[in-house]
């Protein structure tokens, strides 16, 4: 009987040690291969880590957001939230965005800035994709723009880059590069940033991008929920970390409890 208990204890201890060791190894590997989202604190962080890692592994092969026909385009592309009321945006809007420029900086070989005319000279891509809000409503629209990957190739991304960060017009960069409150900034990992369907869109349904939908330029990330597609873009920063911006969660949303990763 005592031999039996010893053996059982041995097996249990062995299993516990193996379990703990494999958890540690799994966590190290996940870190190394970019399978940990920047917002992974607390009990909800367990779910975030599992979902993000599972999706990234699953999407390592072929993974394209569904594309639709012209006939599927929704009559209404619902606008969520008003355009910025700040002076800068109103001035740029009044001038037809002629003075607007997109700054691209950070871990790049050639920090650059692009006018709308320059972006429109780049090879463009049109895609009819579905966009869902986390609340549950959705629409289908055609988006035209320059693939983010094209712009990233133009500026030359450093191999150390892990995130591409997006700021809207009139983000005020004060002390330590902190965006001010109530600015909707966000970031993508490199897998999403290099994906051919990730667009910097300047047209919607064959017309200039309407103000409410993010004029002059917005991000479109069709493999994630709508809130990742930052509107009114003015600056893109490539970085190896998001820890130094805001609370370090990689976007403004997670500071209120929303998730950084929105592939759902």
């Amino acid at each position, binding site marked *: 009987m005592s031999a039996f208990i010893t053996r059982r204890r041995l097996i249990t201890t062995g299993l516990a040690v193996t379990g703990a060791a494999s958890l540690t190894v799994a966590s190290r590997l996940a870190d190394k291969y970019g399978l940990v989202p920047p917002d992974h604190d607390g009990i909800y962080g367990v779910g975030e880590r599992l979902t993000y890692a599972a999706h990234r592994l699953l999407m390592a092969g072929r993974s394209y957001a569904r594309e639709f026909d012209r006939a599927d385009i*929704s009559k209404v592309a619902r606008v969520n939230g008003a355009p910025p009321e700040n002076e800068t945006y109103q001035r740029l809007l009044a001038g037809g965005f002629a003075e607007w420029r997109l700054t691209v900086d950070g871990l790049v070989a050639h920090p650059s800035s692009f006018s709308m005319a320059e972006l429109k000279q780049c090879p463009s891509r049109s895609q009819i994709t579905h966009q869902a809000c986390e609340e*549950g409503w*959705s629409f289908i629209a055609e988006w035209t723009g320059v693939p983010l990957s094209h712009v990233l190739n133009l500026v030359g991304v450093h191999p150390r880059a892990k995130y591409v960060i997006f700021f809207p017009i009139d983000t005020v960069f004060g002390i330590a590069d902190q965006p001010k409150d109530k600015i909707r900034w966000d970031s993508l990992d490199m897998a999403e940033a290099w994906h051919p369907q990730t667009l910097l869109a300047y047209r919607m349904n064959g017309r200039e991008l309407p103000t409410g939908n993010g004029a002059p330029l917005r991000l479109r990330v069709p493999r994630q929920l709508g809130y990742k597609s930052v509107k009114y873009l003015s600056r893109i920063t490539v970085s190896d970390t998001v820890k130094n911006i805001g609370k370090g969660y990689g976007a403004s949303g997670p500071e209120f409890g929303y998730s950084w990763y929105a*592939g759902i």
Partner: protein
Amino acid sequence: MANTLKPAIRGMDTFHSPRHSAVVRITHWITAFSFFALVVSGAAILLAHPRLYWGETGSVETPSLIDLPLPFVLVGQSGWGRSLHFVSAWACVLTGFFYALSSLLTRHFSRDLLPVRGDLAWEPLSRAVLNHLHLKWPMEEEPPTYNVLQRLVYLAVIFILFPLIVATGLAMSPAITSVVPALVEVFGGYESARTVHFFLASSLVIFLVVHIAMVCVTGFASRMRAMITGYHTGRKVQT
């Protein structure tokens, strides 16, 4: 070693017999807690937009399939509903896989849940339905096996409702459907998958209500004791 659920005789007028294995008890309670969290967080998510649509798209500017008589509320404005929904979905799904795998290996499904030969015929089935309608069901002292209705309902929950609610949940993920587009297409689109998800959840809630009601009327204390300790204990009824 395997026979830890050995029946014990405690006297002539009482019984103490094995009822639920450790795997069944542990997975039952993890599932119970995570399902409760899924219902609460699911309700919070639904309240953000309590309208249901059919097809790929829908919003307040388009006609709906069903306008649920609920207010549009962002509960807490913090997205906690979604976070809780996902962490409990992981707990529920991983537990479900463990339960299914272990139940196949230990023959729990074939032994305890597959209807007994002959029970699927018209006569025993209608008798079981009539017994339930007349509020006559097995009381505490009866042999600890499931009747044919219980077996059919548990099998439907485990092999139809549960897989479908996971599939419709995944069908709402643009990342998942970028790899497996068929997952959303079989349900007729994103909004259809959302609507089906809602009705599956409602069916599971109805199942839960009936399940708890049955536990209460057939002996709450003894059923709870069985699902916690694994043993079915009670007083024999003299016949």
